[in-house]
């Protein structure tokens, strides 16, 4: 059953073979969880969203028309749930952000230029922070583009927005991310 494509598995589930949905879960659980985590920066919230995503997908599987790829439909559920989850809790900058008493980001000190070592763990940590400071829409677009390798069209389907919106969001997201990274770099240099 593992070799079956998504549409065949969905058909099997709709015909009553619920074990086919287990294959779907195992196929996409990491992607869904990963997306949820990138969007929410919280292990706990991401786990909740991942569970709810599959639960809702199973419930609404009959409404999946098959015109788009299944994973874009699944990611859309994840995205919508992440938005709801985010509304429920207080806004947070990042899971990894260490904030001082005034709520400002405290970065680990390093004499070397951070931009020079962006590929090391520290650099990754800075990227985490920068991504965490983006709006959810921008972050979702970037994650789907760079981590999932989605096209504009697939991102549009996943986020439920027109392709033109995806294009402009990604444009703004990249420039905003760049600006944040430069700001973080400058702050770090000042320390």
């Amino acid at each position, binding site marked *: 059953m593992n070799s079956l494509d998504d549409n065949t598995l969905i058909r099997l589930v709709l015909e009553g073979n619920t074990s086919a949905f287990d294959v779907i879960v195992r196929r996409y*659980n*990491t992607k869904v*969880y990963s997306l949820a985590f990138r969007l929410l920066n919280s292990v706990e919230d991401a786990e909740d969203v991942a*569970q709810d995503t599959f*639960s809702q997908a199973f419930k609404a599987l*009959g*409404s999946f028309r098959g015109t788009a790829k299944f994973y874009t439909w699944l990611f859309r559920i994840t995205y919508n749930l992440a938005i709801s989850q985010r509304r429920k809790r207080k806004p947070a900058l990042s899971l990894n952000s260490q904030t001082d008493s005034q709520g400002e980001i405290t970065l680990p000190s390093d004499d070397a230029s951070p931009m020079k070592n962006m590929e090391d763990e520290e650099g990754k940590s800075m990227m985490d922070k920068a991504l965490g400071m983006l709006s959810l829409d921008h972050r979702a677009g970037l994650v789907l583009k760079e981590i999932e390798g989605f096209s*504009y069209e697939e991102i549009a389907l996943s986020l439920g927005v027109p392709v033109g919106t995806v294009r402009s969001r*990604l444009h703004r997201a990249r420039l905003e991310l*760049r600006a944040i990274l430069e700001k973080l770099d400058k702050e770090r240099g000042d320390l």
Partner: protein
Amino acid sequence: MKKHDLKLLTSYVDGELHASMQSELNELLQNSSEARELLRLLKQDALMIRNQVPMECSYELTQKILAKIKVRSLSRIGHLNKRDDLMMRPWFSLVAVAAILAVTTFISFYAVNAFLGVQANDLEKAKKSLSLSQNNETREKKLPANLNALETEKADQIAMLEKQNVLPVSPEINKDNEKSVKINLPLETDKGPFTKGTQGKELLAAPANEAFNLIRIDAPLPWVLRKKEVSGEVSGKMLAKVINNETRLKIELSCKDNAAAFAQLKMNLSKMGYFVYSDVNTLMRLKNKNDKSPVNFMVYLENANANDLARLLGQEKPALSKEAAKVAATTSFWEALVLSKISTNDRKTMKSVLGFEPAEQGGSFTNATPPNETPESAKGDPLQSLKKNKSSALAVSFPAAQNLVNSAEVKQYLEATKSSSLSGIKVLIVLRTDN
């Protein structure tokens, strides 16, 4: 840097730069060191995002997800999800506490009143003990008379209810559900529509199981108001009497060979002027007579009337045509049927399973298209034929294990029929196999 130039760069990093813009980008990069630097940084950022440590879904989380799905799939059958959802709501605990407080207050109020009442009664008793003793004999004589009046009134009410729900019953179905309520009521032996001869047809009329897949319930069926053993013909008149005030009806047929019964039912419907819309899988299943896999069949009728139903079920000889009469006369594949109103739960189930539910109210009964007007319309495009016909039926199959028939065909059917203003009885017929 110009906004357009920035867009060129980000589109390029996205991998979505149109071929016609490539030369423009090349020119920009050749002439602007600032653009070259920004492009390098943007590509570096993209690489950094891609290189982020992938988040693995833990084994425990996967198990949690699978368990949740399992519960949901069970709750689809057992309708457990409603309670779970309710319990999960944040306001549920508040409502529960409020309810407990209200009940406690209510009980306390009556307890105090009762206590005070007892004290008052003691005083009264002390004062009137002598005078009461004389009246006791009179009271004892009146009490049985009052009780008798109450019992008679109650019995009358029950009898009235029973009359309103006069529905035949099958002892065979009772075997499926040995613990079901058994009410032995006097038979209407000489009067009514059930007395015109015996054809061996046994009917059960009681609200059926909530799910279409007819899971056998071992618990008693508290909603059964009345069951009555009958033998005889089911006439349109009798059905009209039963369903006159209900425009939604659920009929469950228990068959030895439900595929054959379904085929017969479909044929009957066509002969009666219905356009029967079926899905490919069902047609294939009907063609393959060797296929004995447990598949349930379902027919959803709109714009039906009581006479249609009686003819359809093969219990009454149709008066319209000899051909139809011949077909109807052979319809005896089902051994028992369950006739009930489509309840709110049925509608909910229908909506969750099929993606639609019968209309809220159908209005007055209307006749189906006469048999001799239909076949032409069925020859062309099925959806067009469906739209043209006043009466239509959806005939689909679904696995016995799970009642999911939310297929493209069902959606097409609904799409084609949603604009029509259908009236009459909405009927859901489910055929199950007893194999």
